[in-house]
């Protein structure tokens, strides 16, 4: 018979031997993003292999700001993401509540339409959306264009609906017997209880808005109204551009969200995993 502790040790060793190189490869691009952002351009394009950060970050950022008004773009991105998240959580939780807790005519049809179209790619609506917003509503290069159309996202509705329908019915019946108005039941009982779900949803929505690229690229391409990813994207592929600056921008786009991710990993993960629970 094999010794139990010895086998366990071997297994543990093999496990770490497999995972460690993979983890290093996976972290490498992020590390290099950081390293590049601290290196002067001549350093990035020198023949030496440099894997350690230098001290040129501020200089790089100044170059970036000279290439495109990145601070303005960051401001737009942050504002849009915050407003979008708040609005979207409001809309989707109200809709999720209605679909979870009331039986009304048309309910199953609404659910069927949401479920039936949720997996369609965004590509299928991008053209008409663009025509509608840019040409018919004449809203290109506005805040509304950045915030309102992406609110159609229906994953949040299903997520909130699931959360509300898992709450015990008796809780709401008790309030009804006590004469609490429906909107107050929603506000004072349902929403507070859905707080963890709302947190996870908010994080996912914020992330989606923060990183959104295609739609802002199409609809807000005027320099003063670009979001940060769009502004940064315009620099990639230009010849006379500071790559150290681009990397500084990439770090500024990534670092805050990565920082939040470290502390709220649980919510991120439950938000992403929730996509799989239906």
């Amino acid at each position, binding site marked *: 018979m094999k010794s139990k502790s010895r086998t366990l040790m071997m297994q543990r060793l093999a496990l770490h031997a497999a995972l460690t190189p993979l983890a290093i490869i996976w972290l490498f691009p992020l590390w290099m993003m950081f390293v590049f952002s601290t290196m002067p351009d001549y350093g990035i394009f020198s023949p030496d292999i440099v894997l350690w950060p230098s001290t040129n970050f501020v200089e790089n950022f100044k170059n970036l700001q000279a290439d495109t008004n990145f601070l303005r773009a960051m401001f737009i991105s942050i504002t849009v993401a915050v407003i979008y998240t708040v609005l979207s959580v409001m809309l989707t939780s109200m809709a999720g509540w209605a679909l979870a807790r009331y039986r009304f005519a048309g309910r199953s049809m609404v659910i069927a339409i949401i479920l039936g179209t949720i997996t369609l790619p965004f590509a299928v609506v991008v053209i008409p959306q663009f025509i509608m917003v840019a040409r018919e509503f004449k809203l290109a290069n506005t805040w509304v264009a950045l915030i309102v159309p992406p609110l159609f996202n229906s994953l949040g509705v299903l997520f909130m609906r699931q959360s509300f329908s898992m709450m015990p019915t008796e809780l709401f*019946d008790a309030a*009804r*017997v*006590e004469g*609490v108005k429906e909107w107050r039941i929603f506000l004072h*009982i349902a929403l507070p209880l859905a707080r963890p779900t709302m947190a996870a949803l908010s994080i996912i929505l914020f992330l989606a808005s923060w990183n959104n690229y295609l739609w802002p690229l199409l609809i807000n391409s005027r320099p003063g109204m670009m979001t940060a990813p769009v502004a940064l994207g315009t620099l990639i592929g230009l010849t006379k551009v500071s790559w150290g600056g681009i990397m500084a921008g990439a770090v500024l786009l990534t670092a805050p969200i990565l920082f939040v991710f470290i502390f709220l990993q649980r919510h991120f993960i439950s938000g992403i995993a929730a996509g799989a629970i239906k």
Partner: protein
Amino acid sequence: MAGLTLTNVIKRFGAYEVVHGANLEIADGEFVVFVGPSGCGKSTLLRMIAGLEDVSEGTIEIGGIAVNDVEPSERRIAMVFQSYALYPHMTVRRNLSFGLQMNGNPKEDTERRVAHAANILQINELMDRRPGQLSGGQRQRFAIGRAIVREPQVFLFDEPLSNLDAELRVQMRVEISRLHKQLGTTMIYVTHDQTEAMTLADKIVVLRAGRIEQVGAPLELYDNPANQFVAGFVGSPKMNFLKARIEGKGASGVTVSLRADPRVKLTLPVSSAVAAGSQVMLGVRPEHFVNAGAGDTDLTVRIDVAEHLGHTSYVYATISDEPLIIERPESRHGGDSDSLTIGLSAARCFLFDAEGSRLR
């Protein structure tokens, strides 16, 4: 305070009828228990009284006023739920005052009512905790407290004790009984537990498959069940049912013989007409067997297991594959022999026809 009248109340879910025309009169201040196996419609009936389910047909009156179209909150009722339904994110004090506060009740009055309820239930020191920090029994007490605060005309209880362990269940049962004496309010209580029904009720309503089988005081149902279902449902352990056959009819009643042992014959006073040779059920409660020779006839059964509880013993036995339970208050042994001869007294036996209707 108010009584209730249910007139021909029907409930359908889609095409599926779950309550088939219930008629019931509940007097002011009465403690009424709806009892029956799960799926019998007792909870649905209660939820219709609460206004949480619509009434498909018929009327429900509370205090002489039809309430079919009255919102739950306007019916002057309070309800205690099986899962307690305390709002988990509020302190229990807030739980108690929430409903009144949301309806604009004056602050002082709300506080007075909450303090009053806390006094009645002796829950003062726990008022600032959250439901999650309380034991099941404490939560139950607060759920009742929340009902008391509403000062309702009618209290509704939906299986309130089924989430508690056996010991707490007995304790809470006594408290609910005490509460009823103290407040004197009409109470309607749903349970599937016949012991709760027997101990709490002024009046028991036995339901089966959406129909009211019998309404009566606890001992009335015990002594005088309307049919085989009620006879089997009321009393613990359950009444024994032995297959039997009508042998003939005499001046003193009909004579039946057990199918398991045709030598066992018993003559019972039956008024209704029964044909000789028809199949019937002889019902006898475990506690109503007598010693061999002391009754009108004897029968011999095979003992499977005997449970000795100290003050009494239950003998689980069979008589040619028909199971029966016999209570033997005096016996503390019986392990030696694997058969037992026991007496039957005709005065304590029931008789039911093949449809379960009571013959005697």
